[in-house]
């Protein structure tokens, strides 16, 4: 132990530290929770603080190195309760905080920058933020926040944040614009552009760029995240993971680990219950296979669970892990789907007690089929086509990389119920799924979802909670477990890698006559989400275009690779990469314009989506009657394409002088397009619920089961409720995702939250409204159907009004007392699709193969965006995540199955200084089945950037690359072979 003397936020402090303590650890021990863990070696910047006024990463700084220095954390700005510093306020107003996990680092970076440069350029701002990774926003709004903060600190008034309204343009007119140039209205790109629909009525709160309801909590770095609490006598847990890709665990000797002072429990196969389960957080009954146990006697990938330790400190727990003696019998491994499904491959799931594996002997977790016509009819359709094209694609395993890793704190409450405070997207599924694994009943478990710092599907999985539950029950002490970055990369989940082959029959005029999609998918060591993700690949690959004959075939293979699971887009990004690349090449091959070919075939309002109900494990032509096929109820595809064409300056792609600039002989430019669609929840399955109660001052508590993971769900809930109740969004106090307190919800996935849970909120608010209106009628002396709620008052048609507060006081205290409240749930037989058009402009350096994306545009029809600011944040962040999928991201293993890039250095995600400008255009449509016309927007932005970039590269160079990511070497090699 040593003493470290420093000045912390203006106060002299002496900290007791070990030599190995990082400043990050020391500061969190001091209660500076705004300093957060994102990585161990400085790559995420989540732990950035100011040291003598300069931004430094506290995770690569020993506490001892700060001795004698001045350390400033975000907490230094938090002087007045309920108030924000101008920089914090700018971050909230602009929607720069999604998860808000790195808010401290970003605000401090802004502070340091603005102190030395009060009027910074965009390049300076991006440079100042370049060491702080953000997986959610795409940086546009963060840069805008710093700009606004600068303006405010200079004493000037920042401009309004109203999204500019575009004059709509038709597709023909857009295509005819000459000379084409990108048309950026005079407003920051951080604001979405709006194309309004005449079908959408007036609203007071819905549709407005309201600041996030949890803005204060995030901007101040308050202790909102799972790991931001410390309980008395809390233990720290660490996982020991497998060094082998495939091995049997013959014996575990934990005696040395247990003998280490400070170790409280060591769990492994030989001392834990053996209950088969599927880790995917999905609706009951969970889809097969049940092929996992908490600690198996076999490891199936490098990173698989072997043992867990709970100890007084993380250091002790980590050391104890190294003292566990495990005897392995190493087995041959299959490291790709083709290897695993080939002859003589090792059987990865040779256990006898797993349930629901499609064909374990052939390493197939699932097989999926679906077709709209018989095989004979399909082949006849191909035979009738003027042209038939076959093309294969390959897409890698991408990792979610939420900046906040998986974190759980568990304890026994005073009634000895197990409480799990977990960074989960699915609190209710988790409660039900973890119960059998820890040997408790559902009623003995409470799951609390605190603030999440991103999830993207990785937190739709139970990857740590069962272990923490078992450790809590074994030690009867609180236990905290936080994945480190390497574990987050390897032992969490990834997107499914796939090989896809499209066979397409097309007439010379571009009409599609037959589509056949075959997929081999890699689910990694376990089959979680294997069926549903790959079903969606079929659905998305074969729904955007009308075609009389369609067939989908898919094998999902086990491999000895990290486990694939749910990841934003959920099978759709794979499908769209293949489909949209393929169609571009088909158009070129038959001499059609890529937009023309698509327009010939794209689905429109009123068309039926024929493949979806036919996807199943049985295959064959499912007997589905025409009326049972889902219908497209609203579709803005054509308008989206028109807006995107205008915004990107589409026709330049045919201009040789633009494509090959004279002054830069090594550069070729190009523009590409991809269309996409998604769903809004899972029809018949997803359900959300909400309750609302009115308080004395006409504020409302809104309790929703849904899980906001940084997306802005809590804010749009407040807006929806406020709209119905005639109050301000700030009058709604939202609490979501606590299984003891809030009603049920399936959780945050499948783009369901706005459409399903939002509708539950609307209905609950309407129930409360009915009570208010009845009482208001009485107080105003009119029939209740004449009462209107607005501006926090109830109005009679003649202009008389009564404050809602009086109604609340009347109801709670004086007359015929009641709690005014409403509760409702909602499910839907529909899943109306949002539609989008994504455009990319690129520069390819033909000497090096480097692809630089210079602009991204997405025009999207998500119905009516409830909050254009948070919705555009979803789009910007999704586009940049998809850009990573296209250009840089891929989990790479060596020949033994060991990860080569399980860290942010070698695994590249985009930073503030290399993210291209993004432009978001919302093309409104009115979706009558959604709350105030809304459809979903959370996933669709991740669908189309990768193929748009790929198509732009082809436009620039003539080279078609069908494997992601487009690394410089891959592009260079393709150019060599040209």
């Amino acid at each position, binding site marked *: 132990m*040593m003493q470290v003397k420093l000045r912390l936020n203006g106060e002299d402090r002496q900290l007791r530290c*070990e*030599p*190995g303590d990082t400043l990050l650890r020391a500061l969190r021990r001091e209660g500076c929770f705004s300093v957060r863990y994102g990585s*161990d*070696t*400085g790559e995420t*910047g989540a732990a*950035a603080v100011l*040291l003598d006024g*300069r*931004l*430094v*990463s506290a995770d*690569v*700084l*020993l506490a*001892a*190195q700060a*001795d*004698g220095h001045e350390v400033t954390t975000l907490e230094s700005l938090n002087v007045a309760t309920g108030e924000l510093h101008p920089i914090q306020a700018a971050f909230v107003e602009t929607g720069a905080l999604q998860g808000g996990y790195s808010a401290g680092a970003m605000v401090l*970076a802004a502070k340091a920058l603005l102190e030395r440069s009060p009027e910074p350029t965009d390049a300076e701002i991006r*440079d*100042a933020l*370049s*060491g702080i990774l953000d997986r959610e926003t795409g940086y546009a709004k963060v840069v805008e926040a710093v700009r606004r903060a600068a303006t405010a600190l200079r004493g000037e008034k920042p401009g309004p944040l109203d999204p500019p309204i575009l004059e709509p343009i038709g597709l023909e007119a857009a295509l005819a614009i000459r000379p084409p140039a990108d048309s950026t209205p005079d407003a920051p790109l951080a604001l979405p552009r709006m194309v309004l629909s005449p079908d959408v009525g007036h609203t007071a709160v819905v549709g407005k760029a309201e600041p996030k309801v949890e803005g204060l909590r995030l901007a101040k770095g308050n202790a909102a995240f799972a790991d931001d609490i410390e309980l008395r006598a809390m233990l720290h847990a660490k996982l020991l993971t497998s060094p082998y890709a495939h091995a049997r665990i013959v014996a575990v000797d934990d005696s040395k680990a247990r003998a280490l002072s400070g170790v409280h429990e060591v769990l492994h196969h030989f001392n834990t219950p053996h209950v088969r389960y599927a880790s995917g957080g999905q609706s009951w009954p969970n889809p097969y296979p049940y092929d996992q146990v908490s600690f198996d006697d076999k490891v199936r990938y490098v990173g698989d669970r072997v043992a867990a330790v709970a100890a007084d400190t*993380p*250091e002790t727990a*980590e050391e104890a892990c190294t003292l566990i003696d495990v005897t392995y019998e190493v087995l041959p491994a299959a490291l790709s789907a083709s290897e695993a499904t080939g002859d003589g491959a090792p059987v990865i799931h040779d256990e006898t007690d797993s349930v629901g594996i499609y064909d374990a002997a052939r390493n197939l977790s699932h097989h999926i089929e679906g077709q709209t016509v018989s095989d004979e009819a399909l082949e006849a359709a191909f035979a009738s086509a003027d042209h038939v094209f076959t093309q294969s694609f390959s897409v890698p395993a991408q990792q979610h990389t939420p900046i906040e890793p998986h974190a759980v704190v568990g304890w026994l409450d005073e009634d000895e119920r197990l409480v799990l405070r977990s960074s989960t997207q699915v609190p209710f599924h988790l409660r039900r799924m973890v119960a059998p694994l820890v040997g408790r009943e559902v009623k003995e478990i409470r799951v609390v979802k605190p603030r999440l710092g991103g999830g993207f599907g990785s937190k739709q999985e139970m990857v740590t909670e069962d272990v923490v539950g078992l450790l809590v029950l074994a030690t009867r002490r609180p236990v905290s477990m936080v994945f*480190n*970055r*390497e574990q987050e990369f390897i032992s969490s989940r990834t997107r499914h890698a796939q090989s896809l082959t499209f066979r397409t029959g097309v007439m010379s005029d571009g009409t599609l006559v037959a589509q056949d999609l075959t997929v081999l998918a890699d689910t990694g060591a376990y089959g979680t989400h294997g069926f549903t993700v790959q079903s969606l690949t079929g659905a998305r690959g074969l729904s955007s275009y009308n075609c009389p004959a369609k067939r989908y075939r898919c094998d999902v293979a086990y491999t000895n690779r990290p486990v694939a699971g749910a990841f934003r887009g959920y099978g759709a990004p794979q499908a769209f990469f293949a489909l949209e690349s393929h169609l571009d090449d088909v158009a070129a091959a038959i001499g059609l314009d890529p937009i023309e070919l698509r327009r010939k075939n794209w689905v429109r309002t009123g068309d039926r989506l024929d493949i979806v109900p036919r996807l199943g494990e049985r295959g064959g032509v499912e007997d589905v009657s025409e009326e049972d096929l889902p219908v497209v109820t609203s579709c803005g595809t054509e308008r989206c394409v028109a807006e995107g064409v205008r915004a990107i300056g589409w026709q330049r792609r045919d201009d040789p002088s633009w494509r090959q600039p004279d002054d830069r002989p090594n550069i070729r430019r190009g523009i590409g397009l991809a269309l996409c669609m998604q769903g809004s929840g899972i029809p018949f399955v997803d359900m959300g619920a909400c309750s609302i109660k009115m308080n004395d001052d006409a504020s409302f508590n809104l309790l929703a089961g849904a899980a906001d993971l940084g997306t802005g769900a809590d804010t749009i809930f407040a807006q929806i409720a406020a709209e119905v109740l005639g109050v301000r969004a700030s009058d709604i106090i939202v609490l979501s995702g606590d299984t003891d307190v809030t009603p049920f919800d399936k959780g945050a996935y499948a783009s369901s939250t706005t459409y399903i849970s939002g509708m539950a909120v609307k209905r609950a608010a309407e129930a409360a409204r009915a009570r208010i209106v009845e009482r208001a009628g009485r107080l105003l002396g009119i029939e209740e159907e004449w009462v209107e709620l607005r501006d926090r008052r109830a109005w009679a048609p003649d202009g008389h009004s009564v404050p809602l507060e009086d109604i609340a006081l009347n109801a709670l205290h004086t007359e015929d007392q009641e709690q005014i409240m409403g509760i409702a749930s909602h499910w839907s037989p529909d899943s109306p699709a949002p539609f989008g058009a994504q455009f990319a402009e690129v520069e390819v350096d033909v*000497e*090096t193969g*480097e692809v630089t994306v210079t602009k991204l545009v997405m025009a999207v029809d998500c119905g009516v965006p409830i909050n254009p600011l948070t919705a555009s944040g979803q789009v910007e962040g999704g586009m940049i995540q998809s850009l990573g999928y296209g*250009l*840089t991201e891929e989990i*790479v293993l060596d020949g033994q199955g060991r990860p*080569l*890039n399980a860290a942010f*250095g*070698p695994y*590249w995600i*985009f*930073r503030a*200084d*290399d993210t291209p400008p993004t432009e978001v255009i919302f093309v409104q449509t009115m979706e009558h089945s959604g709350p105030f016309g809304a459809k979903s927007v959370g996933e669709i932005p991740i669908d189309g950037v990768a193929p748009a970039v790929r198509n732009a590269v082809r436009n620039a160079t003539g080279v078609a690359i069908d494997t992601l990511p487009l*690394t*410089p*070497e891959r592009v*260079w*090699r393709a150019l060599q072979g040209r």
Partner: protein
Amino acid sequence: MIPASFEYTRASSVGEAVRMLAAGGEDAKVLAGGHSLLPLMKLRMATPSLLVDVGRVRELSYVRDAGDSLAVGALTRHFDLSRDELVARHAPLLAAVAGQIGDPQVRHRGTIGGSIAHGDPASDLPAACLALGASFVAVGPSGERRIAAADFFTGFLETALAPGELLVEIVVPKATGAGWSFQKFNRRAQDWAIVGCAVVRDGSTRVALVNMGASPLRSPGAEQALAAGASVAEAAERACDGLEPPSDLNASAEYRRHLASVLVTRALAEAGGAPGQEASP
């Protein structure tokens, strides 16, 4: 990702640091910015028993005009180097290279001495020092000595520094008005280079490469070709003669060779002609 346990001491002068290192023996290590050492320790790829923190040795942080050269203290941080006026005037390459390292946090902590002493073939400042023809001053128990950059980098993370020796100063010959260029090929702005190339033309031409072998190195092929009057294209062609670049997940050796020749071409073109040298391709 927690380092093995170790002792920590802090030196307040060069003399004290040298004494502490001597007392600590083989397993003692200097801690400067810690941005190379701490990551290695967290990965347990380095397990020193004693860290001697020189972060507070103020006498090691400076840039001084020393006549026909600049003297740069080993503890000078990348950020300060990138903004220093003397450096901008007399060794602009060094400022440009320092300004493109990592990100602001890395530049605020990382030191030129740490970058040099670490001897990482992937880091940028060693290449800059090689191209500038710099030399390094080391102080050890037996006194002070000066080592030319060209003799300093001996292998993968290995240098001519003896255990117990402290790097105190980087001596950079003034290259006022000389042609120079730094080409960094990476997939993200400012990140580690996949391949990099630093060139200085001040009568003769020095071409140094990042990530093209086990250590930071110069390109004998390109330099000899230029000295013999070859064109830029010919020099670039020969840039990788005798080099054995690594193959890793960012680039195969073959692609690295190709990149190196492209970057050498670009760097020579940007550095332009220098007295007595042919510049145009």
